[in-house]
């Protein structure tokens, strides 16, 4: 099965994105039970900005990360391109 070869930089950017998404997830669950923690909300909003930047980086190597209008498509349509996460 011929699969798109991903450059080394992809793996580094993807790991950074996974790390930032983890921070966002942890803050989300924390804020669900501590909704008045101003500092955590500031961190959440800051990391959300960082995520946008990292998603853009990863998508340069990998193509769209999300659907439903959250990522731009390349041409031809590259959302459906392998490798999928479990194939990497």
């Amino acid at each position, binding site marked *: 099965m011929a699969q798109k070869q991903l450059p080394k930089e992809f793996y580094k950017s*993807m*790991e950074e*994105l*996974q790390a930032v*998404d*983890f921070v966002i*997830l*942890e803050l*989300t*669950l*924390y804020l*669900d*039970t*501590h909704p008045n923690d101003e500092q955590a909300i500031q961190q959440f909003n800051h990391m959300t900005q960082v995520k946008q930047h990292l998603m853009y980086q*990863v998508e340069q190597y*990998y193509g*769209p*990360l*999300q*659907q*439903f209008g*959250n990522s731009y498509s390349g041409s031809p349509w590259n*959302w459906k391109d392998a490798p*999928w*996460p*479990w194939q*990497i």
Partner: protein
Amino acid sequence: MWIYEKKLQYPVKVSQCNPMLAKFLIEQYGGADGELAAALRYLNQRYTLPDKVIGLLTDIGTEEFAHLEMIATMIYKLTKDATPEQLKEAGIGDHYASHDKALFYHDASGVPWSASYIQAKGDPIADLYEDIAAEEKARATYQWIIDMSDDPDINDSLAFLREREIVHAQRFKEAVEMLKEDQGKQKYF
């Protein structure tokens, strides 16, 4: 609605082909305390829970699907290069006979997933206590699988998932406390 993100929550690397480990891991795919049960339990209970905790169940339920994909990735990678003979030796010849190497929602003994694993009582305390117990049971299962595994890469991902169960249990306990506070104010129940 839900939006799929084309990435794993946490990296999954596999040291070597190991269908025996895949056999154990499928417990967390389609078993009673596995990730499918967790996701479906929380995302179903949330419709009738108090507003205060719906967000938490939505978010944890969604994260469980990310865990399900991690487990699927482990099983896929551990079996993709195995021969039918190796699968048979690992004790999953009966799985192969029905599914080839496709994944299926059953536990480590091959028992198919059942909705009887989960409950929704419409009583917030009863539901949240079940959720806490479910997280603790999943944490224990991850520990037993780590104890049997000699794959350092898989164990790294499994340790991550084990820690997530602890965090989820903690948040569910906080949710119980939030509801109990309201109960004290006689705003609820």
